[in-house]
């Protein structure tokens, strides 16, 4: 049965789009049929991170308005056959999204894919609430710092009240993904610890993605990190998270600083 996931956070810049692309590519590499949808109408980014920006013809709004068929708007990834993208419109705004239109698109996607991953815009307004509307499960992306954690808490409240599942009296499954985790800064107490974040949000942990230049490089290259460097620390962390999503029981490791031989020899003196 198809699973509709929303990747959400409230706060901007915490890594929703990066995580959507990385998890989508990881699930697809494991043989699942995946579509990633950009809900950030007016400020689309997912096409860039997926490296598909030069192939966008139709978008989500065109499908909702009946200008294009869903199959015409879906862009199939060149590297992984079973990964598709439904881009957002850059020229419109969130008011162009209609609830019925989205319900129809999601229902049709459910018949074609195993995983439907909705990349939510930041904020708690229309775009974000429509992105979470039909979700079976949510991935809440949080950075280990207070403003991001409080915004995530707010979003969790909305997931429990504004989704179709919540209105039916059911619960949207929730997974917490901590991104941009910096082992050395955490050790110095400059970030919230993992325990603090879990205590505040009381939501099960899906994974911890270490802060890494690898992620930035991958985004700039237009390739999800799980595709361009699957063996890097963030690449492996995203793969682990995707396996947990598929129901595998994989213990969570808190990333620690991996030091090279020089750091190990001279690290203490330098510090």
């Amino acid at each position: 049965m198809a699973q509709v996931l929303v990747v959400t956070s409230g706060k901007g810049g915490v890594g929703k789009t990066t995580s959507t692309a990385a998890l989508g590519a990881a699930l697809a590499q494991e043989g699942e049929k995946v579509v990633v949808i950009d809900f950030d109408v007016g400020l689309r980014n997912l096409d860039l991170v997926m490296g598909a920006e030069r192939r966008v013809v139709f978008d989500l709004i065109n499908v909702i308005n009946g200008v294009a068929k869903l199959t015409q708007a879906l862009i199939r990834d060149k590297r992984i056959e079973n990964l598709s993208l439904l881009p957002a419109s850059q020229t419109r705004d969130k008011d162009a999204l209609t609830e019925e239109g989205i319900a129809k698109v999601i229902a049709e996607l459910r018949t074609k894919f195993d995983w439907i991953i909705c990349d939510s815009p930041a904020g708690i307004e229309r775009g974000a609430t429509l992105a979470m509307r039909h979700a079976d499960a949510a991935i809440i992306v949080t950075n280990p710092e207070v403003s991001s954690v409080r915004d995530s808490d707010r979003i969790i409240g909305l997931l429990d009240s504004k989704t179709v599942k919540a209105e039916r009296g059911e619960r949207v499954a929730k997974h917490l993904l901590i991104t941009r985790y910096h082992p050395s800064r955490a050790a110095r107490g400059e970030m919230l610890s993992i325990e603090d974040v879990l205590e505040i949000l009381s939501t099960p942990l899906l994974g911890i993605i270490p802060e890494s230049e690898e992620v930035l490089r991958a985004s700039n290259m237009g390739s999800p990190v799980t595709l361009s460097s699957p063996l890097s620390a963030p690449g492996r962390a995203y793969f682990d998270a995707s396996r947990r999503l598929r129901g595998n029981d994989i213990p969570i490791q808190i990333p620690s600083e991996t030091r090279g031989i020089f750091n190990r020899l001279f690290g203490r003196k330098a510090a």
Partner: protein
Amino acid sequence: MSSVVRQRQSLMFRARSYMAFAVMPRPPIMEWLADLDASLERSKGFFAGYPVALDLSAVSLSPNAIAQLIANLEERHIRVLGIEGLDPKDAAGLPPILRNGRDSHAVEVAPRPGAEFAPADPKLQTSSLLIEHPVRSGQTVVFTEGDVTVLGSVGSGAEIVAGGSIHIYGTLRGRAMAGAVGNARARIFCHRVEAELLAIDSYYKTADDIEDSLRLKPVQAWLEGGTLKLSAMN
């Protein structure tokens, strides 16, 4: 001859909002009064001491009939403070017209069917509200009829307003306002305090005023001689 020219002082008026019951009669009035009597029989003194607003939007009565209705309510110790839902030109000699009333009871937390929130019928209400999940940032729980118990944490930016006491079996990071309808005997108990604001009957303390030694401790708050006191429990 000297004359003292006295400067007239400018008068200051303050707007103030209060909690009042809104009573909404439905036709036929005599039957409605009989139903009211039956309810009052079961919980005597329910309205005693409380201001009551009369909402006439469901009925159309002549000014005489309205005066009669108010007298009938008066006999039942229900004192009408003002009237809602009436054209001001029909209100001569009657209590003042009220406008812009906001419904209380509006409990925003997860409006799920069959949820644990206040039942609609006031006479069947228990005087406590139990919330079995965390209260998230941005959510407000308002329960003026009695105590609120939360089995979980109250997030930063969340708000609990209770007519009675507040009990939180988790960390309180948001705001807790107990005794919100003027109950100085209400208290706040929480398992771990990291609150943004604690208030009882309009006396309050912000996070800045809470001693550092109490942070993250189990704490109770109560009113004593017009000040909000805090102490660690055990």
